[in-house]
């Protein structure tokens, strides 16, 4: 392919979704609903599927020269906004599309069904593509805000008023944080006279020592607001309500995609200056602590979707911990490269199984008319009464639950083994291993909603209920569940592809000998055993007492900002 064609094509994941969204909104204003429906399908085709096909044509060019650069509006370089498409961008766009598509199918029957919802999904995907490609610090701010605004509206689509409250507090916290991001951008612009990543990093190497502290502060102001989007503790208070009160399809997207895209975009900010390396290690510890605390809170919840939301925090802790450790060690070392690959692979598998879990649990709790995991029993029977012929919701739930609990041959096993492989011996490794046992325990807890009803006190489902059509829901389950299994089984083939695209070098052979070594299998068995033990402790009196106290904790609005101040303070302490 010609390079000039490639320069046009690589922007298609930004332009085409916006075109699709515009078409849908236009038809909504002028045509009746039936025609808008057609436009929605057309919009998804134009905005999600065609760009994916197009950017895969660019893979040969990427493996040849690493990246494709272009300037928006063909301005001169230095004036226009420059974009840079590389393997990481491709992987992030792929991640976003793979989750958005099943989530959209799920939303067709489960709602929100309006045309504006499809348009919002497309706008969000355009902003994700832009975040993954931009080479300009201010443009990163704009794209993060677009993604944020789309997310606030999507959360507020939830039926409960608490969804509006969650969207409001997320908006206030995140937009205030983004003002700090702008301040950091300003300081860097003042010092270097540019917003382009490459020019900034060039100029920063020439600065004298006096300005170094200023650069450190500016970078801190840029990094912390992005970490707020990623929801590392103590910045994760907004997440619980947002993820648990949003519509199920949106929850799947939020935790599958929206937490990870900013994190991987942050790699470019870290590359700006060697001064950022001081931040990597504390972030890695924070990630590991997040994994453990998140799972503890998850175990304490009675609301099924809240439990899943705390699991998102916990799993993002795994990802952040490995990601930051890889930056600390250095991407050019073998261990660092492997950790980066592992953190992306875990982000990808987490996106798949968590989306699946949010949809199946959402559907089951809707059918059972309660979200309380202690009261809801016989969810499968309730689904059957609604017209589900095969117990696919239950089966898909168990695929997701076994994946997140890292049971072979599902993808969670592969990604967690890979993730912990290079961490052996560190404090993070210990924390993450304990968190893994907690994960098993909390999924035993939530899995009980599919147990048959025993006593009469359990929630009874009314016999008279309108039958529902499960076809669309089942298609989205199947897509995700098969992807969960396939990314596990074919990981030996997929991982070299990811390694190649991330532009790192590792000589590790990802064969079955690597994953199924006897020590890994024994560790996995011990984790499951420990998980069952934790579950038994949790349902005993003392365990219940502790968990009850944890469950009562609910962050207030001010706590969001306390967390923000704490994060800035802690990171500032580490560099001084």
């Amino acid at each position, binding site marked *: 392919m010609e390079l000039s064609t490639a320069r046009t094509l690589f922007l298609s994941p930004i332009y085409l979704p916006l075109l699709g969204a515009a078409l849908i909104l236009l038809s909504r204003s002028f045509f009746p609903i039936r025609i808008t429906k057609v436009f929605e399908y057309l919009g998804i085709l134009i905005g999600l599927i065609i760009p994916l096909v197009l950017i895969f044509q660019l893979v040969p060019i990427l493996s040849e020269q690493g990246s494709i650069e272009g300037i928006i509006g063909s301005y001169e370089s230095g004036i226009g906004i420059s974009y840079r498409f590389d393997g990481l961008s491709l992987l992030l766009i792929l991640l976003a599309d793979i989750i958005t598509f099943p989530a959209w199918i799920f939303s067709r029957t489960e709602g929100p069904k309006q045309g504006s919802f499809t348009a919002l999904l497309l706008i969000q995907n355009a902003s994700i593509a832009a975040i993954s490609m931009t080479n300009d610090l201010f443009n990163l701010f704009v794209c993060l805000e677009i993604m944020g605004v789309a997310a606030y509206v999507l959360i507020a689509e939830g039926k409960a*008023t608490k969804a509006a409250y969650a*969207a*409001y507090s997320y*908006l206030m916290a995140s*937009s*205030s944080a983004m003002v700090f991001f702008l301040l950091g951008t*300003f300081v860097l*612009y003042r010092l270097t006279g540019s917003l382009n990543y490459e020019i900034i990093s060039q100029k920063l190497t020439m600065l004298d020592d006096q300005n170094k502290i200023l650069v450190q502060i500016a970078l801190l102001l840029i990094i912390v607001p992005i970490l707020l989007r990623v929801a590392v503790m103590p910045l994760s208070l907004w997440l619980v309500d947002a993820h648990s009160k949003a519509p199920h399809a949106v929850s799947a997207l939020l935790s599958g995609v929206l937490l990870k895209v900013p994190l991987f975009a942050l790699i470019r900010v870290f590359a700006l200056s060697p001064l950022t390396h001081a931040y990597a290690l504390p972030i890695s510890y924070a990630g590991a602590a997040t994994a453990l605390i998140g799972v503890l809170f998850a175990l304490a919840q009675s609301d099924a979707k809240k439990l899943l939301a705390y699991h998102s925090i916990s799993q993002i802790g795994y990802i952040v911990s490995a990601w930051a450790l890889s930056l600390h060690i250095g991407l050019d070392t073998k261990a660092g490269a492997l950790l980066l690959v592992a953190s992306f692979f875990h982000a990808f598998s987490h996106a798949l199984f968590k989306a699946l879990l949010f949809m199946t649990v959402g559907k089951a709790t809707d059918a059972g008319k309660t*979200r309380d995991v202690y009261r809801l029993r016989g969810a499968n029977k309730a689904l059957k009464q609604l017209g589900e012929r095969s117990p696919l919701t239950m089966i898909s739930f168990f695929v997701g639950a076994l994946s997140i609990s890292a049971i072979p041959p599902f993808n969670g096993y592969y990604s967690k083994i890979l993730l912990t492989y290079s961490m052996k011996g560190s404090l993070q490794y210990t924390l993450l291993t304990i968190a893994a046992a907690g994960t098993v325990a909390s999924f035993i807890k939530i899995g009980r909603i599919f147990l048959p009803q025993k006593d009469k006190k359990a929630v009874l489902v009314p016999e008279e209920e309108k039958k529902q059509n499960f076809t669309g829901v089942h298609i989205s389950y199947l897509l995700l569940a098969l992807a969960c299994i396939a990314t596990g089984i074919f990981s030996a083939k997929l991982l070299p592809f990811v390694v190649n695209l991330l532009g790192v070098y590792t000589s590790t052979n990802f064969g079955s000998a690597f994953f199924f070594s006897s020590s890994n299998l024994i560790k996995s068995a011990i984790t499951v055993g420990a998980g069952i033990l934790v579950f038994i402790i949790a349902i005993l009196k003392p365990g219940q007492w502790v968990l009850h106290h944890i469950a009562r904790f609910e962050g*207030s609005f001010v706590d969001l900002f306390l967390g923000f101040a704490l994060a800035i303070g802690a990171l500032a302490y580490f560099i001084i």
Partner: protein
Amino acid sequence: MTIERILIFLLFLVGFSAIVGAKNIIKKVFGLNLINSSVVLLFILEGSRIGSQAPIIGEGVTDIVDPIPQALMLTAIVIGVCVTALALALSVRLYKATNSLEIDTIQERLKGEH
């Protein structure tokens, strides 16, 4: 020179204390607007100090003011307006559901909801 910076900093503090301290959710939105404006002012003020002449390139114009900070702030203002509109819309929904604008009361009244 420094007095302007101090004033901008004070504006920022007023806004931030409104976001964190004010109980009323509309006042919180005002606070968000204030901190946004203070950063916009900072960009414009500091940006105007790079160079001395108006950025209209013509004969004899050499030392132009850097136009980029102003251009950036136009975008930042637009984003600020969008976020404000959305925050106010959410406030209306919260008020209709709970009949209150106080953040603590809203949280209290929503606690029972599932």
